[in-house]
């Protein structure tokens, strides 16, 4: 990789360091669930993967890597998030985009072998506590007030586990680590300022520092309106902030004013628009975002959350089209 030749990979490295890339605004999705539709091949993950024989699993991991790399190259993705660890999209309903722990590492290695010159590998590993999910929302909330020492212990466990995951995946070639720690809903932060200071921010700072020691990028993902705690998040040592949910009222350009030269911003084309909007709307919104946030760099284009399996292909393509037109740094007329 020659440093004076721009590529999606060099562009994202620049963006993550809050520099203006030479080529284009990098493209990256927290999770991209349209591999099949963009390749006309089948990526096998989740429960379907676990039902395969050992030999079939080996084959599937190779095929998955080839498909993901091919789509990434074809559409100029600068980074690629490897399939995640097990999680449920609702209680009892496992997500599609996951692999068992050892297979996940193997998948990362295979991807690294074929893609590391062209695409930055990312992984969601955890590290920082998030607001609770549906299964323990009430109990967590009450425990945080009645038995805060137990939540403090959970925060420590979350950090240790997340860091351990990151170390393993770093050895497999992953360079960007995401703690998917939802801290807010649309209204505002779930944690009050004191709880943020007690359970979140010290661990986020520590986690970000440790990830950097691994020569990797610490990235925070959070849904919701994080504006009330934005300053603390931006000064925590993270190198990128992803999601910046427009449905929660977040305007990326406003965040950029505070984040300039400190933290790279990743997002934030509304996921709802991808699902329910028309391609023209996606094109228009993407163009607007690019024109506002491209100057100066420190900006990675993608959805405001994940690209879900139900996303219309033509809507995702509308984002790509807008990026081709407005996302290039060489074209001054479109900046």
């Amino acid at each position, binding site marked *: 990789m020659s440093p004076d030749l721009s590529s999606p990979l060099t562009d994202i490295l620049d963006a993550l360091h809050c520099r203006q890339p030479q080529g284009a605004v990098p493209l990256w999705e927290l999770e991209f669930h349209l591999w099949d539709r963009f390749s006309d091949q089948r990526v096998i993950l989740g429960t379907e993967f676990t039902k395969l024989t050992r030999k079939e699993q080996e084959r599937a991991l190779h095929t998955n890597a080839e498909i993901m790399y091919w789509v990434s190259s074809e559409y100029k993705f600068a980074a690629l998030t490897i399939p995640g660890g097990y999680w449920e999209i609702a209680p009892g309903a496992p997500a599609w985009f996951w692999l068992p722990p050892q297979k996940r590492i193997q998948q990362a290695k295979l991807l690294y072998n074929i893609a590391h010159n062209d695409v930055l590998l990312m992984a969601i590993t955890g590290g920082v506590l998030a607001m609770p999910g549906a299964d323990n929302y*009430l109990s967590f909330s009450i425990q945080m007030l*009645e038995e805060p020492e137990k939540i403090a212990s959970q925060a420590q466990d979350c950090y240790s586990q997340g860091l351990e995951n990151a170390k393993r995946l770093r050895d497999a070639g992953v360079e960007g680590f995401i703690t998917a720690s939802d801290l807010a*809903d*649309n209204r505002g932060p779930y944690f009050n300022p004191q709880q943020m200071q007690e359970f979140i921010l010290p661990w986020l700072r520590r986690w970000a520092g440790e990830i950097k020691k691994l020569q990797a990028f610490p990235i925070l993902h959070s849904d919701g309106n994080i504006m009330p705690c934005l300053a603390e998040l931006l000064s925590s040592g993270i190198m990128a902030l992803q999601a910046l949910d427009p*449905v929660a009222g977040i305007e990326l350009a406003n965040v950029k004013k505070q984040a300039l030269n400190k933290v790279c911003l990743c997002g934030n084309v509304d996921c*709802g628009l991808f*699902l329910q909007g028309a391609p023209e709307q996606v094109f228009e919104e993407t163009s607007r975002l690019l024109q506002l946030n491209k100057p100066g760099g420190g900006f990675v284009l993608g959805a405001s959350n994940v690209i879900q399996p139900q996303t219309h292909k033509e809507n995702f393509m509308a984002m790509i089209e807008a990026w081709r037109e407005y996302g290039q740094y060489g074209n001054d007329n479109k900046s």
Partner: protein
Amino acid sequence: MDEIIVKLAICIERGKTNKTSPYPPDLREQDGADELAKQAIEAGIDANRILGACMQGMQSIGEKFAKNEAFVPELLMSAKAMNAVMVHLKPFFQSGSVQRKGKFIIGTVAGDLHDIGKKLVSMVVEGNGWEVIDLGVDVSTDKYLAAIAQHPNAIVGMSALLTTTMVNMEKSIQAIKAKYPATKVLVGGAPLTQDFANKIHADGYAPDPQAAVKLLNSYVA
């Protein structure tokens, strides 16, 4: 007598459920909503006054929540304290000596298994004097219609957490409006907006539990 009522309202607002609860720290070892409600009933205080004190406490925390001076866990603690009082008031509701403001049927729409938001809204609405009929998650249109048939004057609430399932609200609202045109339908959930609520012809959009309470109260004012 009034002292108990004042203390009860404070316990609800501060989320002090009972004496054994260590929260809030400054009320540790003191009687909570549970003990105070019991004492109030034993002292012969009208159950309506007890309920009124609770609603006052819930209103106070709700207002703080709306102004971002209180957060979800604190609101939930208040709702928990309120529920402790409701146990004592149950016989009065059953006998009809205490009336609720109305009935609120709530469910997470078809295809969606999330119930965080729905549960939170249910607790706060109940704490504000409404009877809540919780239909659970993945609620079909038929299930909403059956519940309305059973509770004809109820207001309906629909929740969705996913952008992929919120679209199912429209179908359910159309069916409800076709069969029960007078029934009010409120919608809420993380991916929703006022524009979306307007588009699917919902009567109201509640971005948070307190907004749901305000809307509900406006319908019975």
